[in-house]
């Protein structure tokens, strides 16, 4: 039985990428369902059983809606920006190991699309790109609300990217590798999970995650009461949907990253030799918790003020993350390893 290697790649790409996009689509339904349940409501329940086909209906609607482009907009940039926002978020999924290694006959297939040695670096580089979509969209719309939303997004992104990198750096320093597969494989047992050695980094990463994806309580780029819709005020139809697809993809990727870095990825507690599909289930559960956290926080907390956001980023999170990295480095240098 000779299975060509490209076919295996193709299957992996289709499964993982498809899973990401459908997760993002289901998140749009989950967002509305969760908000409804938290407010004694029912939520969408008309399309399909329990409203499960609602994302499909939304998609169809978005495709068929008329697309408006403002008269003064830079048309090329305006069209490019949503794709710039969504594509990097999807690309980063390539390096996340969603499970261990599957052995089928003579093949041993690692459950990630790309198994690169600089996985963390790749991920940080591309997730940093997605902010260009937001800034460009805000600028190209030729609207004051959009521009303000884009500017806020860039300021916020710069502030929190630092913290995000510093917290990941602590983990990387501890693990001694940039390969995400190696990092997750190093946490086979519950006791080895990085959450125990890096609790502060975990908390900082989790909070920074919200800021990185422009989610509540840090969604200043959209901020309906002040900026109408922020950077996507002027967007409509599928391009508008693309921004949200990007946002949900980024949420999913960061949730997966969080699970990989701090919760051992596909490792099942107290069952280190669990088969690969249980591992995937455990991974999905861990990532799912963070996704739920996104929604949970959104429908519970009020939005912060922009100056509070900046103060928190620069005066609290950055020093804490730096201190955390220094202490970690100290432990590595002088520790009892």
């Amino acid at each position, binding site marked *: 039985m000779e299975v060509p290697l490209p076919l295996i790649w193709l299957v992996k790409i289709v499964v993982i990428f498809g899973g990401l996009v459908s997760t993002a689509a289901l998140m749009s339904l989950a967002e509305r369902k969760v908000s409804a*349940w*938290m407010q004694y*409501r029912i939520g969408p329940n008309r399309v399909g059983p329990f409203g499960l086909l609602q994302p499909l209906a939304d998609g169809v609607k978005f495709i068929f809606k008329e697309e408006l482009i403002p008269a003064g907009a830079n048309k090329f940039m305006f069209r490019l920006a949503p794709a710039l926002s969504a594509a990097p978020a999807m690309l980063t999924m390539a390096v996340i190991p969603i499970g261990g290694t599957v052995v089928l006959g003579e093949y041993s297939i690692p459950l990630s699309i790309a198994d690169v040695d600089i996985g963390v670096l790749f991920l940080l580089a591309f997730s940093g790109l997605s902010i260009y979509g937001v800034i460009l969209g805000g600028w190209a719309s030729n609207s004051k609300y959009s521009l303000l939303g884009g500017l806020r997004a860039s300021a916020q992104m710069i502030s929190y990217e630092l913290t995000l990198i510093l917290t990941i750096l602590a983990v990387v320093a501890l693990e001694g590798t940039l390969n995400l597969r190696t990092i997750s494989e190093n946490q086979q047992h519950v006791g080895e999970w990085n959450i125990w050695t890096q609790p502060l980094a975990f908390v900082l990463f989790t909070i920074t995650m919200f800021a990185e994806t422009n989610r509540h309580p840090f969604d200043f780029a959209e901020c309906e009461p002040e900026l109408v819709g922020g950077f996507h005020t002027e967007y409509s139809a599928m391009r508008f949907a693309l921004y949200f697809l990007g946002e949900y993809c980024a949420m999913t990727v960061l949730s997966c990253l969080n699970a990989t870095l701090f919760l051992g990825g596909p490792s099942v507690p107290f069952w280190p030799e669990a088969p690969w599909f249980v591992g995937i289930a455990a991974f999905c559960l861990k990532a799912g918790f963070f996704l739920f956290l996104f929604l949970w926080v959104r429908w*519970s907390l009020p939005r912060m003020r922009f100056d509070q956001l900046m103060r928190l980023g620069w005066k609290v999170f950055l020093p804490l993350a730096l201190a955390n990295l220094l202490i970690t480095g100290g432990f590595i240098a002088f520790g009892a390893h």
Partner: protein
Amino acid sequence: MVIVQRKELTLAERLYLPEIFRGLSITFRKFFEKPITRQYPEEPLPTDEVTRGQPRLVVKDDGNIACVSCGMCEIACPAYAITIDGGETDRQIEREPKRFEIDMLRCILCGFCEEACPKDAIFMSNELELADYTRRGLIYDMEKLKRPKSALQPRIDYVYKINKRWRRTQA
């Protein structure tokens, strides 16, 4: 002028995280409570005789409309929603409406027409739904307004009851 003394925050409150978890726990508890949503078209709101819905014309048991087109509701209508053109009829009553239109877009469901009618010909029904594709379609003519007396009987009885009570307070 009121000077508000802000409460001094405790350390836990200033740390913000415990408060966040408190808030999250509240929403999480609501998560499992029963929804109060009413699925409208399938579960309509209950109405009773006190409901002041759209006005409707009474068709008496003999099949004739009770209206004699006296114009009292037309002149009582504060929204100028009612238009009546009268005409002669061979019936005992001599006069009947040839055109009776209520512009439901104008109607404010105040019930003045019901109160003004000397012939018990117009009553507020419990019908509340109002949708059409054209404005013209929402100007209801006589055929759309006619309802058998039995359908309006609870409201008629109710109006008689409150009128009686009102007369007692006047005496």
